[in-house]
Every structure is written in C-alpha cells, then in structure tokens.
C-alpha cells in the first residue's frame, strides 16, 4: 500500500510538470522510431534503451497508466508502467546519459523534444531521491561559493595577478588589466573554471578597448544538468546579482553552451522577471568586434586544415552557425566543413554533464564514434569548437582514437591571430 502511494506521488510529478507542449509530446508520438538514426548514443551502442522514443516512452507509459482512461482501464494496450525501482533505474541510466543535443527533435516529424521530456524524468528522479550524486555535489559546491564569496575572493584575486601578467606580456602593454568588481563597466564577462577561459578574452578585450569586468563566478551550471530548476536558478542568481550590483549593461558568457542557454532562454522564465542587462555569448561578441573593426584578424594565417564542430548548445539551441564560421574561415587558409553540419551536426557525446561523470567515461568515448568518423573524413588537423564540454570530449576522443588533432577554442583562435592595434 505504501509503495502504491509513493508510486502515485512520483507519477504525479509528471502530471504537475506537464505543460501544453509536453502534452502534445505525450499524445502524438507514433513510435515510428525515426529518431533512431538521430541519436549518436543509439547509433554507437545499438542499445534500444538509448533510442529517444524509448526513453520518452518510459515517461509516457507512467503518465498514461495513471492519468488516461486507456491507461486506467486497459494498461496493457499501451504497456502502462508504474514508477517502480526497475523503471527508475532504467530512467536514471538513460536520462542522465542524454547530452541534450536535441538532434532527435530536429529529425522527429512531429518535432518531439525528448530532452524536454527527460527534464520531467529528472524531476521525478529527484523527487524519488535519485538525482545524480556527482552533479548534486558540483551544484552544491557552486551554491556554497555563492554564499561564501568573501572567503574565496582573495584567492581569486591573487591567482588573477599571474594571469594579468601574462596578458601584459602578450599585449606588450604593462597597463593591461583584468578588471574585477568594476561598478558601471559596460560588460561583465563570466568565465569558466581555469584561466584558459580568461586569458584569451582579456587579450581580445584589451585590443578592443572594451570597458569590462570579470565575474567572480563561473558560467557553468550543474544544477541545470541535474534537472533541478530551483538549484539551477540559485546558481545563476549569483551571476545575475553580481551584474545588477555592478550595474553592467551586458553580461558576456564564456564558451559554455549550456550557460548561455540557461541565461538567455531559461532564466527569465524561472525568475519571472526581465533581466536589466543584455545576455550575450562570447562567440557573437567576438564576431561583432571583428565586424565593427574593433579587432582585426590575421587573414589566412593558419596553414593546417581546420574544421569547426557546431556545439549543440551554440548551434541548434542558440542559432550561432555563421558567426563562429566567419571567424574560423578568416584565419584559416584551408577550412573544411564536417558532414553533416549546422542543425544536422552530430553531438560530440560530451554534453549534458556527461563529461563530469567518471562512470560514464567509457560510454561517452564510445558514443563519440560518429564525431570521430566526421573528423577523420575532413582530414583536418585542428578542430575548433566554442564549448568547454565539447572540447573535453574531443580531447578524450583524440586520445582514444589517435586522431592526431589539435583542439582549440574559438577564443584562443581569435586571440592568437590578432593584428596588433596602433
């Protein structure tokens, strides 16, 4: 009896979360299975539990069993299921494996967003106390940093001094700075953990004479990967509050796909408020700086073959296809396109927080097979991609499959190929 009540409560999590679009997804899937060729994880493993329709069907069967007439009277017709341990185990494995690339949505004749349905699955898993422990821990650490920023500040400022020196060396300008906590700056740049995401941007901004300040926080949001919107909002709040306090007119997010998605497309809906500043990605900012002539690139300076990997969160989910390409093409003599590309591009296999999970290492490198084939086919020696998760995955693929390539961020590519301003 108790178990029955628990199951009903879990099923109710689905019901509460279902909005109009999700109801369409529940009702209209014909299980045609065309999404099988869209998912890199199914293609690489041949395991049906990774087929997008199968993953979504787990949610659909629970919902239908509890909340539809067919499910109540004839559950066998739709193979209705209870959210028992077996189902939750299966859901955990397949939901936290999803990289959220939404390629299956592109190829679905009804545009069913399986990732969004899996967001409901994550809510159900969290309700059952089965959220991913690693993502929970990482999200918790980010919240902790937000609450105790005064303890961290000195360490951060100290480590920035070395980076600042490097900026001065590179630019040849002893007055070059990495501004922090600068009230009234035009833009606040939100980096990722590690100075490799600060240094090139500081160089670029110095060249562009941009009035900026560096955020004390990282853009990454593990609460979003965990599927806990409240936690994800708390993590994003740190950046929003800082930007409000400093009264900047825009925030610029580093090369981090999901951070941009959270800030640009999700935050306002979560907070039910309009942000008093503009949200931009570093990809579009660099493109604008080149277009407006504020920075100049060394044309055709790279002789080796270069290719560009569209991160799912930068391409399909944010719409930057041509901006990064124009930057890469400008500095490369031999630019090669992957096939397929843009909205049809294969996911590298590292998104959705999968790279943060050591237990998933073997799986994610295996499911990067499609990306490996694509890169090999171009014969490129340098792969550029503006997403930290993609680059970590590409590094792993490079090592495992001996691709003999160099993986570069777009910021590094731009920073290394700047024409010195007079």
């Amino acid at each position, binding site marked *: 009896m108790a178990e029955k009540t628990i199951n009903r409560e879990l099923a109710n999590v689905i019901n509460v979360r279902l*909005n*109009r679009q999700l*109801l369409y997804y529940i*009702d*209209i899937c014909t*299980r045609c299975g*065309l999404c099988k060729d869209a998912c890199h994880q199914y293609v690489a493993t041949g395991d049906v539990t990774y087929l997008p329709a199968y993953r979504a069907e787990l949610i659909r069967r629970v919902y239908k069993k509890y909340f539809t*007439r067919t499910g109540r009277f004839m559950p066998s017709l739709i193979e209705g299921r209870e959210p028992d341990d077996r189902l939750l185990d299966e859901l955990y494995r397949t939901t936290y494996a999803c990289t959220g690339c939404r390629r299956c949505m592109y190829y679905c*004749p009804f545009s069913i967003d399986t990732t969004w349905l899996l967001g409901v699955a994550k809510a159900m898993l969290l309700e059952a106390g089965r959220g991913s422990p690693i993502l929970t821990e990482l999200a918790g650490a980010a919240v902790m940093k937000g609450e105790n920023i005064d303890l961290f500040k000195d360490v951060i400022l100290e480590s920035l001094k070395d980076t600042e020196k490097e900026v001065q060396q590179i630019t040849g300008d002893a007055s070059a700075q990495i501004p922090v906590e600068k009230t009234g700056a035009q833009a606040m740049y939100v980096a990722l953990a590690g100075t490799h995401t600060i240094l090139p941007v500081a160089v670029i901004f110095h060249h562009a004479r941009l009035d900026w300040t560096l955020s004390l926080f990282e853009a990454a949001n593990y609460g979003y990967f965990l599927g806990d919107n409240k936690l994800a909002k708390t993590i994003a709040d740190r950046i929003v509050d800082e930007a409000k306090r400093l009264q900047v007119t825009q925030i610029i997010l580093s090369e981090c796909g999901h951070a941009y998605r959270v800030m640009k497309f999700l935050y306002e809906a979560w907070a039910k408020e309009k942000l008093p500043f503009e949200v931009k990605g570093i990809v579009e900012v660099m493109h604008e700086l080149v277009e407006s002539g504020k920075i100049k690139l060394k044309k055709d300076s790279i002789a080796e073959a270069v290719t560009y990997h569209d991160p799912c969160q930068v391409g399909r989910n944010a719409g930057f*296809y041509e901006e990064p390409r124009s930057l890469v093409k400008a500095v490369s003599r031999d630019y090669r396109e992957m096939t397929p590309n843009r909205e049809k591009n294969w996911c590298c296999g590292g998104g959705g927080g999968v790279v943060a999970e050591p237990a998933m290492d073997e799986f994610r490198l295996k499911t990067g097979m499609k990306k490996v084939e694509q890169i090999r086919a171009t014969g490129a020696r340098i792969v550029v991609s503006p997403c930290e998760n993609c680059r970590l995955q590409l590094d792993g693929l490079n090592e495992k499959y001996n691709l003999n390539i160099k993986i570069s961020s777009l910021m590094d590519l731009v920073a290394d190929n700047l024409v010195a301003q007079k």
Partner: protein
Amino acid sequence: MAGVMVYVAIAVFLAGTAYKIYHWIRAPRSSVRLGMFPRPENSFGRGLKLIKDSIVFPQVLDNDRIMWFFVIMLHIVGLGTFIGHMRMLGEFAPLYNWLGKDGMDTLSYIGGGSAGLILLVAVLYLLFRRFKAPYRDISVPEDYLLLLLILLIIMLGDHLRFFAHFDVTDYQAYMKSLITFNPAFPAAIAESGARWVLASHVFTASLLAIYFPFSKLVHFIGSFAANLVRSD
C-alpha cells in the same frame, strides 16, 4: 445496426477531438521558448515552415527514404480515398458533366482501385516494419491493433471495390438513408451476399473513428501544433 454505429462514431470522433484540443489548451503554455535554430524571422516564415514540416515531412525524407515513400503514400492516398468516398454524397458536377456516368465509374474504379492497393501495401509495410528490431522494442499493442484495424478496413474496402460490383447509385441511396436518419441498405445491396462486407467495412471504420482521437492517431491535429513548437 451498422447505421446507429455510424452516428455514434461521428459523434465520438468530433467530441473526442474537441475534448483533446480542450485538454491541450487547458494546460499552460511552456514559459520557456522551446524552439530550435535556425528559426524563421517572422510568423509568415513560421507558417510556411509549419506547412512544409507537417505535409512534406522533410526530416523523414532526409533520414529514411523508404519510410518517407510509404508514409507519404499512406497519408496522401489516404486523404484521396477519403475525398473519393465523397462521391457517395453526390456527384461532383463539373467532373460529372465532363466525363459522364461511365467515365466517372471508370475513374473511380482506376483511382479508387489503385488507391486501395497502395494503401494495402503501405500499411503492410508499416506493420512488417514493426516486427523488426528496434521498432519491435518500442512498439506497444496499440500500435499493432491500429494497423490491423486499418488493414482490415482497407481489405474490406478493396473487396467491395473489386468483387462486390455495387453501383454508385446504390451507395448513394445508402448514404442518403444515413443522412436522413433512416439507415437502410437499398434493395440491390440488401439482397446481395456482399452486404456483410459493406456492413463490416462500415463497422470497422466506425471503430477506428471512435478510437481515433484517443489514440496516437490524434497526431492528425496534434502534429501541426507540435511542429509549430519547432520554430517557437
């Protein structure tokens, strides 16, 4: 008996469809824009994309050409068959004046006959496809049941087309009796052994209509709404 069933079927189909739409719009819209890129710049572009995605299935063409062929066949020929049945309500005057009764009969024999065969092949393809992994593993009994029901309707319809030899005027008389709420087979049908085939055809089609809005077939309207989300 089959007459009453038709009224029930039409009523349930319409009420069920209306309920389903109500069920959807009652739920709040997602507060997050769910669309993906590239997305059309204005609502005209969105409309065009919606029509293209919902009628031409470009994503399916890109992905699985054989499936695309049979799915297009099923939907377009299915729609054509539905329109063809309208002849029972009355002759389409411009076409009738041009072709005459014999011409119309020949047209419907060739058109309706080939449509019946194409539908048969398309549904058999979809059915046999489900027996194969991985489609078998994601199929539920509802999927087979619907395909078998549709297959049965098509086979009975094909039987009427190729073996029953009723005249269109007989069908028109039957249809008239349905519209005037006095359902009865005209003599030519009532005295034929094939009357059971017709009764079964009407019965199974009514069953399908009743189940239609409550099954995955509700995608006949839902797909338009869902495909609009793609460019949200």
